[in-house]
């Protein structure tokens, strides 16, 4: 066993007392060239078909993200946390899951939900302010997007442990922000998962900032993947803008988890190109030079260069993908033109499964108030 993170996932029980590679693991470099040697960490480039699929997903995801940001700027959504620039992380990770697996996302991960097949209108219900969550958790095997940081990681561990107790070979993958790694819940989730050996994959999206706070004020560790060591869990430090690497590593982690090998920590190093949310002002805490630097490390362009150089991305395929993306954007605009019919009385209907007299009284009060208002309006 060496100390610089070389490990092949053929090994069933990975050695866990090793430091992740300090240089992020990478399969494609920024120019779109396949990488060989040390920095691949023993992983190999997914086949072209897989890469084309990842490419398509990233292009569609970005089109969606851009569309929603535009709609938000028009005031059509209460808020939208964009993942522009993080497509390598988001798609690489979520594409590694089977349909039976569970995803535990944060507010940042709408494009991962989209990639899981959740409809734009369902994803956006929360951000447009209709209801706190708009999709079916069980149908999509996707938890509600979590806002309280790191809390969802524990849910992922619990669900994975329950499945394991039931001999149900599914995996739970959760996203955690670089800032959120500072929360106690991240620690407890890592530890419970490691002690219980739950089939959980932790994907830390290190996008360099927690709102305005840069990574250097969040940790003094050389990499966030280093944290895995303290839990006896394997950790991988990955170039998050290399979707091929993200896919390869998380796929291996998912397979390992499914096979009973326990949890894995995957850090994807990436960057949030957009502001934190629409109410953020990133000029206060980062330079446009820095943003430009990262724009030149775009995850989609990188894969595109590779696919083009391999002759895999034909013009007709490209057109096809663009069409799909535009269709999705149009559908997203469309769904946002329709104002949802909201029934204020529903406020009382889901708090408890067992009816409560006091809530029924309050519901009746609101009903009367609404009726009176309607009457006034009618007069």
């Amino acid at each position, binding site marked *: 066993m060496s100390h610089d993170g070389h490990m092949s996932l053929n090994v069933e029980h990975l050695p866990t007392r090793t430091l992740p590679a300090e240089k992020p693991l990478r399969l494609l470099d920024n120019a779109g060239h396949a990488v060989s040697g040390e920095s691949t960490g023993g992983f190999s480039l997914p086949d072209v078909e897989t890469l084309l699929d990842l490419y398509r997903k990233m292009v569609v995801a970005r089109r969606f993200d851009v569309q929603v940001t535009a709609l938000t700027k028009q005031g059509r959504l209460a808020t939208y946390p964009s993942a522009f620039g993080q497509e390598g992380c988001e798609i690489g990770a979520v594409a590694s899951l089977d349909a039976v697996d569970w995803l535990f996302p944060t507010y940042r991960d709408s494009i991962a939900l989209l990639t899981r097949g959740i409809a734009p209108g369902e994803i956006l219900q929360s951000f447009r302010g209709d209801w706190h969550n708009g999709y079916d958790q069980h149908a999509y095997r996707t*938890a509600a997007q979590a806002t309280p940081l790191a809390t969802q990681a*524990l849910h992922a561990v619990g669900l994975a442990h329950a499945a394991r107790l039931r001999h149900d070979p599914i995996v739970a993958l959760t996203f955690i922000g670089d800032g959120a790694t500072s929360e106690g819940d991240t620690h407890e989730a890592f530890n419970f998962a490691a002690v219980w050996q739950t089939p959980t994959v932790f994907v830390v999206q290190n996008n360099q900032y927690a709102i305005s706070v840069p990574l250097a004020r969040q940790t003094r560790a050389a990499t966030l993947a280093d944290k895995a060591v303290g839990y006896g869990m394997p950790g991988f430090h990955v170039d998050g803008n290399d979707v091929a690497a993200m896919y390869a590593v998380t796929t291996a982690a998912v397979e390992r988890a499914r096979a009973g090998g326990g949890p894995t920590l995957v850090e994807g190093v990436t960057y949030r190109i957009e502001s934190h949310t629409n109410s953020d002002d990133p000029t206060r805490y980062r330079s446009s030079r820095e943003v430009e630097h990262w724009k030149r490390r775009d995850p989609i362009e990188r894969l595109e260069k590779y696919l083009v150089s391999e002759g895999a991305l034909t013009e007709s395929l490209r057109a096809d993908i663009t069409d799909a993306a535009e269709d999705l954007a149009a559908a997203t605009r469309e769904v946002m033109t329709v104002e949802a019919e909201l029934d204020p009385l529903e406020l009382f209907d889901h708090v408890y499964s067992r009816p409560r007299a006091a809530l029924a009284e309050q519901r009746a009060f609101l009903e009367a108030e609404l009726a009176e208002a309607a009457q006034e309006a009618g007069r």
Partner: protein
Amino acid sequence: MTATATAGARAEASPTELTMAGALGAALRDAMAADDRVVVYGEDVGPLGGVFRVTDGLQAQFGEDRIWDSPLAESGIIGTAVGMAMYGLRPVVEMQFDAFSYPAFEQMVSHVAKMRNRTKGRVTLPMVVRIPCAGAIGGVEHHSDSSESYWASTPGLTVVMPSNPADAYSMLREAIDSDDPVVFMEPKSRYWARAPLALPVTTAPMDRAVVVREGTDVTLLAYGPTVRTALEAADAAIDEGLSIEVVDLRSLSPFDDETVGASVRKTSRAAVIHEAAQFGGYGAEVAARVTERNFHHLAAPILRIAGFDIPYPSPKLEEHHLPTADRVLAALDTWEWDA
């Protein structure tokens, strides 16, 4: 499976003396036997049987996949229980003392309480959080807090507290059967209170208050450890020619307006008793809502006999903090009885 169904399925046992701790352990055992989705975990619940021995013997009976010791982290315990409940298990977890549930406050308030509403009922969390609660056991600091008002004032939580072994059994079974998350508070000072009991037993539904002693002049509203205090006060009051009705609230959220209102309208006077500090304690809600709903039936303000507005005292001083039957009677004396 409901407690009643289980009751039917078992042979009638003849009454034996049982402590509340024993009744709770039996409820867990029976629930685990009846439904293999019920799992139990927390700190020291395995070989040790919990610091109050409530889970004594359960690991030996059901094995480590059904009941196990978790790492020492309360947010971790509650947060993973959320995930397990999402999956379809019915976790019953233990917080060792009220004060040691506080690290889990965010998971409780932001997730346990809100998950069902957030997801429009698509995700229910059938989980039970057992909290050995309150004081009067000579515990050192942080071992005698009363946390009920934090939970009861959080929409989305159901909060119950039994005062006797029969209720302890029946309400815990019902809590485990409930599709909603339940904060199940167990008054530590009553763990060793004994009662003759034939298990399984089904008492009143866990969301109802119960008149445990009838009276005509005053209604005492109590829960958990103070039910005994109220009953003592009622006994002592006979000498003073005062007929006291005692209501065991049992359910803190929801509040049983019906049972309580009926009693208060009958007696026209009421007082609520709890260990927690008075200011912002659960008694505030009781006094406020009972007054709101029965104002013109009240001959006097609703009194609160509660702990002082101070952190829970050290063992040698706790007796001065806790409500006693004497304090209850002294409080009733402050009313203008001729008004």
